[in-house]
């Protein structure tokens, strides 16, 4: 079985397991996003069929919540906290610097698919403000001049 086929099989299994839950659509979408990294239209179609709801309903929910993404994200997702505590301590300038270094606007992915840059809502780590995360790694008390070095670290991290 190819990688994609096994992912689809996993999706169908997951739908089957949640089918009878009250309000199953949200957990199923969350599960699908975990499997595929995003929820593109073909995945939504399978979910709609599996749960017996319309595609428009699935699409409506998937586009309502900011955590669901219809396009794949970069290998490294950089999230800069724009919660109030981080903002008053200058997280906007960290975000601007990242946008400048990566040469992409906020909310987009670099052409090589390596980095996605996004602003995020409060991460609740206000004690470390301003905070940035790259996948699971947390960077606290950030300043703009730390940005180039940190990005270079991930640039050079070849998988």
């Amino acid at each position, binding site marked *: 079985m190819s990688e994609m086929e096994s992912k689809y099989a996993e999706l169908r299994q997951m739908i089957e397991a949640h089918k009878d839950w009250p309000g199953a659509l*949200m957990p199923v979408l969350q599960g699908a996003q975990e499997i595929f990294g995003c929820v593109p239209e073909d995945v939504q179609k399978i979910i709609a069929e599996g749960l017996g709801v319309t595609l428009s309903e699935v699409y409506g*929910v998937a586009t309502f919540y900011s955590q669901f993404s219809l396009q794949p994200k970069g290998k490294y997702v950089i999230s800069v906290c724009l919660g109030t505590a981080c903002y008053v301590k200058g997280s906007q300038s960290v975000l601007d610097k990242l946008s400048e270094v990566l040469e992409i606007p906020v909310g987009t992915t670099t052409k090589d698919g390596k980095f996605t840059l996004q602003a995020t809502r409060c991460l609740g*780590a206000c004690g470390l403000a301003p905070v940035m995360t790259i996948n699971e790694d947390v960077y606290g008390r950030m300043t703009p001049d730390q940005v180039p070095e940190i990005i270079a670290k991930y640039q050079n991290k070849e998988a």
Partner: protein
Amino acid sequence: MDIYRAHVLVCGGTGCSSSGSATLIERFNQKIAEHGLDKEIKVIRTGCFGLCEAGPVVIVYPDGTFYSRVKPDDVDEIVSEHLLKGRKVEHLVYVEHATHEQNAEKKLDDITFYKHQHRIALRNCGVIDPENIDEYLAMDGYKALEKALTSMTREEVIDEILKSGLRGRGGGGFPTGLKWKFTYQSQNDQKYVACNADEGDPGAFMDRSILEGDPHAIIEAMAIAGYAIGANQGYIYVRAEYPIAVKRLSIAIDQAREYGLLGKNIFETGFDFDLNIRLGAGAFVCGEETALMHSIEGKRGEPTARPPFPAVKGLFEKPTMLNNVETYANVAQIILHGAEWYASMGTEKSKGTKVFALGGKINNTGLVEIEMGTPLRKIIYDIGGGCPNGKKFKAVQTGGPSGGCLPESLLDTPVDYDNLIAAGSMMGSGGMIVMDEDNCMVDIARFYLDFIVDESCGKCAPCRIGTKRMKEILDRIVEGKGEEGDIEKLQALAETIKNTALCGLGQTAPNPVLSTLKFFRDEYEAHIKEKRCPAHHCRSLLQYRIDPAKCKGCTACARVCPADAITGTVKQPHVIDVQKCLKCGSCMEKCRFGAISRV
């Protein structure tokens, strides 16, 4: 149970985890084993201690020594000196902000940050291992549930909560007991209790800390609520941004089931109750109760008009009682110690304690729990230690995007629900962000509207369109394109949105603008009329200048300038070409002589 001669408590809250507390725990266990002390000393990962500024935090008991900002390499020293030889490692002990005192003998409760606090909702946070139900049981855990189920009628439980004066801690401030009573009175074969753990206000993180540090307290309270209103199923709706909280809550639910504290026939009273977790997916509006319930139902999280109230028709069309995490965290204590005990704290109409998340330009960032009625000044200066770097305090923002900014002149306001509203802000969920002289209040208002525009669900026109128009005006003002009449336009829009928006999110969305207009109108006027930002924050309205008297001609600024806007010869004062300058501020950061300033 094994007896240990010492316990090492390492904070495993989100703040300390982010700064590497998991590595510390590993290292402690490794080093303790190396010294053969693993039968004598136990390492425990606790929930949040509250003083996030000092993280990662380690406390060694029985001495109660409080180590702060501990690095992995420091662990070896703590183990070989303190744990092995009984000599406290003085240089790693927490330093008091105000006094610079570093006293290894000082216990946690003597530290200024904790001295003024009264921890009820946070009672177990940082004290117990949240992943071990036995530790919760040792702190009188599930005793309140037992008391309620075996010796109180449902009416008595509700009456106790009513008399305690507890009000909704999520922001609304609605009397909790009344909510319970209304749902109890609804006749239906199926009812639900729900917990709002979709903590969305930026800068508020008390619910996360409670879930991470004391998850059983929420489970116990929800079971008590289920008994009181006649529900046997509960849902906890948690933000997906809080993975640690979700994990600990799942562990806690499993343990409670295993101990028979959730499930069928609890305490052999015939009462059945079970809980499920539902994850949010990043929508601020889901903190609104009707939106939250739609989200649990697997739909778009859009609010609906009330009535019908959830007490009559809520989740899956059944009567539902929804409380916030912090509200639940008080319940077991009220049942155990009685309504009178709880009502003896606080002010006339706001009883008990409230947790605040101190953040922004303040020395002691973290969580504090204080009695209602404590003046803002005491929270910000005595507990919070004031603004760092000797900067001047400008405002404190409470209530998140629905709240307002209060100036210095209102700092003596005793904090409770009604006083904060009277002052032009609100309690909200308890975020408290301090701003200093460098923060521009117009920009802060714009920041909040930006948040609201992003998070508005789009269902009703006043919120969807109105807030966007307000933001456009504010964008213009901070860019130096403000016009006469803008303030009046903002006010008119704000009033209309307040009166006509569908849900709480929209109705309160103009508050940050209205409160900054009320207290900092001069800043708006300076932007509009004089094209000047008094805080020197708004990029379009400021210029960088080099003071020729201070400039040594070191050329550092000219070398760092990305726009080649700085010219000058070595050892001669340099000059910035304002036409070329991008206002990035790099030169100011590089200058070692303080010669560059924003005007």
